């Protein structure tokens, strides 16, 4: 079975974010690049399925990123993925969700797959739209916001998080799932994993190599950022004064109850 995990390289989540006013894009230089934290849950989910299925199951990392990000992709290999496919092409710069989804779909189709696992969103643009778009271009069922995942042969069972609870969903492979942070606790790469990852293959392909037959860069983007604003500063919170912990807790519960939050 071929499991593919899509990942994104993002600026360090703890670093201060800056927007370049001329391009209206996030400044990615001068900030450490890391693996999108949400994608680590997708990698962990894939590795757990592989460990359970055994046999010839493989986990391949797929990303659309500049080749300079190779060392970041290696972290995914250090966690235990078998190999990686990087689509690195200057012509992909500035691609929007559509362009990225289309390019990834073409590359994934060319590579072959049974299951694609994605994180729910990235920490940089946070649109959360990619998994859905990718499933569409792959022409397979897309099960998003999954918090529990089971695979029995080609029968996939999942629990999808919803606003009010969760829904049980089942489908057959091939399929795409996006997983939430509640699905697992991503492993840290072991030292042997880190050393072993140096010998694993990271195939680097141009858009043409990957079978992307349409332009996808900034010129081809179907969305445009027209304006950017800093969100208003968060207002001051309400502070409850209370004589002791019980009285304080009572006040907080009352406050939440009035707003029907509990």
């Amino acid at each position, binding site marked *: 079975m071929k499991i593919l995990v899509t990942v994104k390289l993002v600026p360090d989540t703890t*670093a201060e974010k800056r927007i370049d006013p001329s391009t209206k894009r996030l400044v990615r230089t001068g900030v450490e690049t890391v693996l999108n934290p949400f994608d680590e849950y997708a990698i962990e989910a894939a590795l757990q399925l592989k460990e359970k299925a055994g046999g010839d199951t493989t986990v391949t990392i797929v990303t659309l990123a500049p080749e300079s990000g190779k060392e970041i992709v290696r972290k995914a290999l250090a966690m235990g993925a078998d190999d990686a496919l990087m689509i690195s092409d200057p012509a992909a710069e500035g691609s929007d969700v559509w362009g990225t989804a289309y390019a990834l779909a073409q590359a994934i189709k060319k590579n072959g797959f049974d299951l694609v696992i994605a994180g729910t969103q990235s920490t940089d643009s946070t649109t959360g739209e990619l998994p859905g778009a990718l499933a569409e271009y792959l022409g397979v069922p897309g099960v998003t916001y999954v918090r529990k995942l089971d695979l029995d042969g080609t029968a996939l069972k999942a629990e999808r998080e919803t606003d009010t609870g969760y829904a049980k969903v089942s489908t057959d492979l091939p399929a795409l799932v996006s997983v939430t942070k509640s699905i697992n606790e991503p492993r840290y*790469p*072991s*030292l042997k994993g880190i*050393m072993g*990852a140096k010998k694993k293959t990271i195939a680097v392909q141009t858009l043409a190599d990957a079978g992307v037959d349409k332009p996808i860069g900034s010129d081809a983007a179907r969305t445009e950022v027209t304006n950017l604003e800093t969100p208003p500063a968060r207002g001051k919170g309400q502070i409850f004064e209370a004589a002791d912990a019980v009285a304080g807790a009572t006040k907080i519960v009352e406050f939440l109850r009035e707003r029907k939050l509990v």
Partner: protein
Amino acid sequence: MSTTLPRPTKLDPLDMLDLDADFTSDERLIRDTVRDFTRRRILPNIADWFERGVFPKELALELGELGLLGMHLDGYGCAGTSGTAYGIACRELEAADSGLRSFVSVQGSLAMFPIHAYGSEEQKREWLPRMARGEAIGCFGLTEYDHGSDPSGMRTVARRDGGDYVLDGSKAWITNGGVADVAVVWARTNPDDGPKSGAVRGFVVPAGTKGFSTKNIERKISLRASVTSELLFENCRVPASAILPGVASMRGPLSCLSEARYGILWGALGAARACYEAALEYAKTRVQFDKPIASFQLTQQKLVDMMLELQKGQLLATAIGRLKDAGTIAPQHVSMGKLNNVREALAICREARTILGASGITLEYPVIRHMNNLESVLTYEGTSEVHTLILGQALTGIGAFS
């Protein structure tokens, strides 16, 4: 394409010069892995382990699974990292506790290293993979009660008897002794035992060998989360295959110590960083005379001096690490690092204690624990005095001892 002008690096009080940026990406990954492990597994429990004076033996398996045991050795189930990565791992472990770093140092550098460097193929196959997994714990028997800085005066002997050797004597201050499954023991062979006789040789002695027993040293006020023991050999018969074939002089144990000391010169920085971090946080939140004590000039000076010594120590460690990885390291380089970094780390911990006031003496904060631990680190694996004299000899060409 837009261009961005270089901007000053973001000033991190824990690494103002961003010295960790000099590490390779896998070295940084190893740092993060070890740091996360200590955060998850050690920090929540260490005060309790220290107070009760226990080393949780199951931790060996977890450290093995992570790949930390014998991590810089090649093959036989070891991860094969750079020496710098090994140093970084020691730093992160010791930021949690010197006792746990000591466990890893002894296992990797003092027990596995001699088997790896001087052992027979059979010895390597029998012990290294199990030790790398943490299934077998090792210890290193060199020091004796009467022979610390001068180990070549050791009294433990190995007498040849037919095809066997018979060990007699005792070793003291042996980390991991009481929990060890195997001991690498150094003994002087009898002068009339034939070729290479009279030399100090290493022996691989499994726990449970008749005539070999251990006794833990109790009532320690330092390294309490680490086991320290005596090893006793009384008419202890081992086959000739127990001898480490690759070395027949004091060079054997001394080379092991150089490996372990290398880890210590990094480790001490971890302990110091933890105390500095605790002092910095405390100073910013502790209010006296209606303002945080971090507002006072004396406190600021203490913090700045601590930071400077930490950064200088890191520069030293990184430079020595690169010499190790290039294969051009000399034992004197390790003496420079061990002498400076442990001495300064202890000074930083003591200074941190003054910032924390009374809180600094409780196990609620890591400071007194690190401080007490470093009292051992200051003298074990070569006292500050001996390292000073090694360097004195390197500078003047005149040996002040031996």
